[in-house]
C-alpha cells in the first residue's frame, strides 16, 4: 500500500506556500463554498466526514463545532493548537512550514461555522521557522481579502492572530493553552463535567473552539469534496487519513500520510524499514503505551490500536530496535514528564519526580525487586488523579513498559546493569 495524500496532496508543488500557487491548486475555493452554505451545513459536512481530533484525544471534531452556542451574545473564539510538543511528533511543523494556506483556510471556515470573529494560532516559541511562514501567509491572506473585515464581500469578519509560546509542553493541553493565551502561567483548568467545556466557557469565559493544526488542515478538503468523500477513506469509525511522524531506528524517517487502518508494518516499510531488529514501537507520541515487536501486527486506527492496548495519540511514531534498553529509555521518558509537569496537581508533580528517583536508583545498580511494583503503584496513584492528561501520560508508558518488558527491569535490578549489552551509554543522563 502506498501513501494516501489528502493533506499532503499538493505539498510537493513548488511555491505552494504562496497564495498565488495555492489558489491555482484550488486554494480558498472551499472558503468560497463554505461562505455560500449556512453555518449548520458546514458543521453537518464536518459531521458527515467523521473527522476526529488529530491532536491526540481523537474527539469527534463536529461535536466541538456544534457545541458552540448559535447566538452572538458573547464573542466566540477559534484557538488553533500549534504547540506541537509531544515527543516524536513533527507533523504540524511540516504542515505549517510547507502548506500554511491550507491551515489558514481551515481556520477561517471554522471561524465562520462557529460565529467567531477572532482566531488565535498558538505556536510554540521554538517553532520560529514555521511561525515566519505562517506570518507571511496570513499577511497575504489579509491582502487578498480572505481575512479581516467583510471577507470576500460576504459580510463575515474574521481576524487571525499569531500567539507565540515560550517553552512549555503543558501549554499543548487545551485549557493550559487558554491560560497561556490569556497571559497566565500555562496551567490546566478543571475539566468537564466538573466545569463547563471550552465550547461554552473557554478564552475569557467565552465560547471557544479548540482544534489541532492537522484537524483544521483537513477542513478545506472536506468542504471542497464533501464529508461523504472523506468518510469513504479509512475505517468506519476512524475516517480519512492520518499523518504519522516516523522517527527513530528507521531508514527513512519523516512524515507519512496514510489511510486510517493501514497495517503498522506497511508504515514501517514506507519509512524504509527498520534499522536492525525491531524491538518495539511507540505509535502515538511518548504519552501512549509502548507496543512490543510481537504485537505490531495491528492496523493504524483509533479502535485497532486501542484494542492492542495502546493509542493513536498524535501520530508520533517512534521505532526502537534491539540496541535500546527499555529501562534507560523509560527513565528518559519519566524525566521528561517530571520536567514538564506544571506543578498544579500533587500526584503528577510529586509522582513523576519519585519515578525518576526510583529509575535512577535502578540505573545506579541499587535497585530492589519491589521497585518494579513500587513504580506500578505510583502509576496508579497518578493516573486519573490530575486535572489534565499529563499525569495519565506519565503513567501509561511506564506501566506498559513493565507489562511488556518486566524481564528487562528484573535483569537490570538483579545484575546492576542493562540486559542490552550493545546499548551505548547515550540514553542515560538527562535531568
Amino acid at each position, binding site marked *: 500500500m502506498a501513501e494516501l495524500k489528502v493533506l499532503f496532496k499538493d505539498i510537493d508543488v513548488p511555491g505552494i506556500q504562496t497564495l498565488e500557487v495555492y489558489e491555482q491548486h484550488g486554494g480558498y475555493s472551499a472558503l468560497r463554498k463554505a461562505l455560500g452554505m449556512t453555518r449548520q451545513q458546514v458543521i453537518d459536512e464536518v459531521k458527515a466526514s467523521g473527522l476526529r481530533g488529530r491532536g491526540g484525544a481523537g474527539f469527534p471534531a463536529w461535536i466541538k463545532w456544534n457545541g458552540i452556542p448559535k447566538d452572538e451574545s458573547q464573542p466566540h473564539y477559534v484557538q488553533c493548537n500549534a504547540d506541537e510538543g509531544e515527543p516524536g511528533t513533527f507533523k504540524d511543523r511540516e504542515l505549517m512550514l510547507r502548506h500554511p494556506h491550507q491551515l489558514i483556510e481551515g481556520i477561517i471556515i471554522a471561524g465562520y461555522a462557529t460565529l467567531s470573529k477572532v482566531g488565535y494560532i498558538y505556536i510554540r516559541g521554538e517553532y520560529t521557522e514555521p511561525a*515566519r511562514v505562517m506570518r507571511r501567509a496570513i499577511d497575504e491572506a489579509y491582502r487578498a481579502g480572505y481575512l479581516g473585515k467583510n471577507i470576500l464581500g460576504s459580510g463575515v469578519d474574521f481576524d487571525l*492572530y499569531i500567539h507565540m509560546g*515560550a517553552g*512549555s509542553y503543558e501549554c499543548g493541553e487545551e485549557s493550559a493553552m487558554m491560560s497561556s493565551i490569556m497571559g497566565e502561567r500555562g496551567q490546566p483548568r478543571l475539566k468537564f463535567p466538573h466545569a463547563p467545556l471550552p465550547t461554552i466557557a473557554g478564552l475569557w469565559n467565552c465560547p471557544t473552539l479548540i482544534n489541532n493544526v492537522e484537524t483544521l488542515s483537513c477542513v478545506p478538503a472536506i468542504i471542497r469534496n464533501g464529508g461523504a468523500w472523506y468518510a469513504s477513506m479509512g475505517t468506519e469509525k476512524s475516517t480519512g487519513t492520518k499523518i504519522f511522524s516516523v522517527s527513530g531506528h528507521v531508514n527513512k524517517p519523516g512524515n507519512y500520510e496514510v489511510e486510517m487502518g493501514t497495517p503498522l508494518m506497511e508504515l514501517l516499510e514506507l519509512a524504509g524499514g527498520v534499522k536492525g531488529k525491531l524491538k518495539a514501537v511507540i505509535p502515538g507520541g*511518548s504519552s501512549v503505551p509502548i507496543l512490543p515487536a510481537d504485537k505490531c501486527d495491528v492496523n493504524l486506527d483509533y479502535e485497532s490500536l486501542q484494542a492492542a492496548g495502546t493509542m493513536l495519540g498524535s501520530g508520533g511514531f517512534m521505532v526502537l530496535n534491539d540496541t535500546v534498553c527499555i529501562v534507560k529509555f523509560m527513565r528518559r521518558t519519566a524525566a521528561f514528564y517530571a520536567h514538564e509537569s506544571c506543578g498544579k496537581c500533587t500526584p503528577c508533580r510529586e509522582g513523576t519526580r519519585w519515578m525518576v528517583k526510583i529509575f535512577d536508583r535502578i540505573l545506579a545498580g541499587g535497585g530492589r525487586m519491589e521497585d518494579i511494583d513500587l513504580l506500578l503503584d505510583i502509576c496508579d496513584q497518578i493516573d486519573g488523579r490530575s486535572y489534565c492528561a499529563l499525569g495519565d501520560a506519565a503513567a501509561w508508558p511506564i506501566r506498559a513498559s513493565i507489562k511488556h518488558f518486566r524481564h528487562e527491569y528484573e535483569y537490570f535490578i538483579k545484575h546492576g546493569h542493562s540486559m542490552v549489552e550493545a546499548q551505548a551509554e547515550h540514553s542515560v543522563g538527562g535531568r
Partner: protein
Amino acid sequence: MSEAIRLSEYPRAKRIDERQPPELRFSERAVQELERIKRHYPNKRAAMLPALWIAQREYGGHLPPEALMEVAYRLGTSYAVVEGVATFYTMYNKRPVGRVMLEVCTNLTCSICGGYEILRHLEEKLGIRAGETTPDGQFTLVEVECLNDCGNAPVMQVGNRYFGRLTPEKVDALLEELKNSEEHTVVQLADTIVQCHLSESERQDIERALAKAQAGSGGQDGQNG
C-alpha cells in the same frame, strides 16, 4: 572551566520596590509594538507573553527584575504576577546567558539517535557543562526537551533556527560559523518571535509612527508608555 558562569550560582536578584515607578528602558519601537499587540486581545494583561518577549530583546537576551517590573508597569499588573509567568516558561531567561544559545535536544528519539553524543561533544569542545556559559560570554549550552523535529534527529536549536541530522563534524563547522555571525543570537530569537505577532499593516504602522516621532522630537528615543 572554573571561570564558567554556572546558571544556578548566579547571585539572586535584588528586591524591587513596587511603590517606586520603575526606570523604563523600552525603546520607542518596543513601546509601539506592545501597543499594537495589546489590541489583539480583549484585555492588556493577555499581552503578557509577547510583552516578555519584547522585554527579553530590549534587555539584551534575558529578563532581569527591572525588565519584569517594566512589563508589570506597562501591563498594569504587579511584579509578582509577571514573575510568576516569566518563571513558568523555559524560554524566558531569568539569568544572563551567552550571546548564542545552543539548545541540544536529548529527548526520546534524539536520545537513541545520538543526542547525548552531540551534547557531550559540545561540552568538550566548549569546555563547559550543559547549563553553563563560556567565559567569553559567546555560548550557553543547554539540554532541552523535545524540539519536535525528530525526523532529523539529533536536533539542536540555535536562536531562530533548527539544525538537524547533527554529527560532531557538522557541529564543529557550525560553531566556527556562529563565532563570526550576527545570526541566530538570543536577542535575534526574541525579535523574530515579536515580529511574528505583528501583521504587515501593523509593522508599516509602526514604521510610520517611528518616522513621525523621529521628525517631531529630533531623533530622541521616547520613554512614554
